[in-house]
């Protein structure tokens, strides 16, 4: 069963626009929610992460918002740039555990 549901599968955004990727979590025990960025030919790398006691976290143009009651998270990329074109994964895990559950990924293409 899919414990982490990510949407959309793919996204095309104009340069300067806002990219929005959504994630829904089915397991209420999850308490760590990272987002990974993967460029073609590279491994995924942590972009930004949040814990459920925080509703929003911002790093530069990247912002995660988290709704604990709805068990949902969103990644917003402001002023999207062609260099942001990559695959983005939301994920979830339980502190003290060994397993991270990844969403199916969103392929973002930012048009110049």
């Amino acid at each position, binding site marked *: 069963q899919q414990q982490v549901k990510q949407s959309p599968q793919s996204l095309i955004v104009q340069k300067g626009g806002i990219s929005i990727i959504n994630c829904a979590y089915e397991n209420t025990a999850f308490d760590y929610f990272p987002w990974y960025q993967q460029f073609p030919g590279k491994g995924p790398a942590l972009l930004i*992460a949040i814990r459920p006691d925080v509703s929003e976290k911002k790093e530069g143009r990247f912002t995660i918002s988290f709704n604990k009651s709805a068990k949902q998270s969103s990644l917003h990329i402001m002023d999207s740039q062609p260099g942001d074109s990559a695959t983005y994964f939301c994920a979830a895990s339980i502190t003290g555990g060994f*397993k991270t559950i*990844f969403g*199916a*990924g969103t392929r973002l293409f930012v048009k110049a």
Partner: protein
Amino acid sequence: DTAVSQTPKYLVTQMGNDKSIKCEQNLGHDTMYWYKQDSKKFLKIMFSYNNKELIINETVPNRFSPKSPDKAHLNLHINSLELGDSAVYFCASKVSPERGDTDTQYFGPGTRLTVL
């Protein structure tokens, strides 16, 4: 200073062959993983080792056998390769849960396996 390295980067082989992929991390982590990423980019966990002990073994054909000679290395041996094994295989590592509260995984660059 590569944190998580894998060799080889590309592997092209015939069906039925046996091949190995090696992974090394210099981050001092205790927990290491193998993931398979298919053509649709889906990341599927295969195995995890913590302090050289196997702790996660997902539903993976027993043709796949991981080996961890020490905490810094995790290798993956695949017997009797099949067409469906073609994918990108990623190694990852993280701090053991006993040693830290961060759950961030650090991924290697991947090994693209093509079975002909």
